[in-house]
C-alpha cells in the first residue's frame, strides 16, 4: 500500500517505528496547509517558510515521543501556531500585544446579518486581497480559528484541541468571526 493513501494514524505509527517514508508522506500531506496557515498568520512568505519548516522539524523530533493516540493534524497546527508566536516574539515584526489580544477586546458584533453577500463580490478581481484584508481585521484568536477552519479544514473539535479550548468555544468564536467578516465584506463591496 502506498504511503500517500494511508491514514494519519497509520503513518504516525510507521513513523514511530522508524519509517522515514511515513514522515515524507506526512510532509507531503500537510506542508501546503500548514504553509498557508503560517503565511496568513505571519503575512511574510520567508517567515512562513521558516515557521513551516520548524513545525515539521519539531514534528520529526517530538512526534515519536508523543502519545500514540495523539491526533496528528491538530497537533501540527498547534505547533505551527506556536512557531509563529515564537517568530513574532523574536523578530518583533508585529506588536506582541496584537497577538495576545483577547477576544474580549474585539468590537461587539451586531446580531448576525441574514442577507446574502452581493454576488458581484465573487467576481471581483481583487477578491484575494479583500479576503486577506478581511482576515487581518479579526482579533488574533478568531483569526487562528478562521484559518484553521478555512485553510486547514480542521473540525471544531480539532481546532479546540489545537488552541486548548472546548469545541463549543471554537464554534462560537468562528460564528462571531464570520459575523465580523460579513460586516467587513459588505463594506468592501
Amino acid at each position, binding site marked *: 500500500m502506498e504511503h500517500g493513501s494511508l491514514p494519519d494514524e497509520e503513518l504516525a505509527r510507521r513513523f514511530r517505528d*522508524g*519509517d*522515514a*517514508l511515513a*514522515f*515524507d508522506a506526512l*510532509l*507531503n500531506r500537510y*506542508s*501546503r*496547509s500548514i*504553509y*498557508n496557515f503560517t*503565511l496568513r498568520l505571519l503575512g511574510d*512568505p520567508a517567515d512562513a*517558510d521558516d515557521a*513551516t*519548516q520548524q513545525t*515539521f*522539524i519539531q514534528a*520529526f*523530533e517530538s512526534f*515519536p515521543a508523543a502519545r500514540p493516540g495523539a491526533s496528528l493534524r491538530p497537533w501540527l497546527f498547534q505547533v505551527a501556531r506556536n512557531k509563529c508566536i515564537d517568530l513574532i516574539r523574536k523578530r518583533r515584526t508585529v506588536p506582541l500585544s496584537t497577538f495576545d489580544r483577547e477576544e474580549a477586546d474585539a468590537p461587539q458584533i451586531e446580531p448576525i446579518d441574514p442577507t*446574502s*453577500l452581493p454576488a458581484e*463580490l*465573487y467576481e471581483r478581481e481583487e*477578491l*484575494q486581497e479583500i*479576503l486577506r484584508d478581511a482576515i487581518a481585521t479579526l482579533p488574533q484568536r478568531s483569526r487562528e480559528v*478562521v484559518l484553521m477552519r*478555512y*485553510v486547514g*479544514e480542521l473540525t471544531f473539535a480539532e481546532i479546540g484541541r489545537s488552541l486548548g479550548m472546548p469545541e463549543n468555544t471554537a464554534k462560537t468564536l468562528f460564528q462571531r468571526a*464570520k459575523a465580523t*467578516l*460579513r460586516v467587513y*465584506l459588505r463594506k468592501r463591496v
Partner: protein
Amino acid sequence: MYPDDVDDVDRLFARLERVDPPADFRAQVVARTEHRARRRHIVGYGLLIASVLLAVFASFIIGQQLRTSGALALLAFISDLELLAEAPAEVALALVELVPWHLAAVVGAALVMVVVAVRLALSPSFHFESEAGDAST
C-alpha cells in the same frame, strides 16, 4: 468540505488562494532535520564518552579512598547483616562517615548524564530517500 450550515461567507472563503510552499521546501526540512540529528548525535556520543569516563574515574577514586583509609574493610564488617539487624543506627552512622558522598554524588550525576547521552545518541535519525516526492508537489 463543510456539510452543515455552509453559507455565502464559507463559499467566498473557499476561494481563498492556496499557495504552494517554496520548491525546495522538502529539501530544506530534510537538510535541517538531518543537520540537527547529526549535531544531537555528536553531542550525545561526546557526552556519553565524557560521562562514562567521569563515572569510571570517580568510582576509581572512591575505591582508592576507601582502600587507603581502611574503610573498605570496615565497610565489609558493617555490611554484615546480623550487625545491621542489631544496630542499624550505628551502621548507618558509620556509612555516613566512611563513604565519600561528594564523589558518590559525582558518580550518580555521571550516570544520569549517561542516560541523557544515550537518549540523545539514539534520537531519531532517518535516511531520507532522495527520490521521494517534493513536499510542494
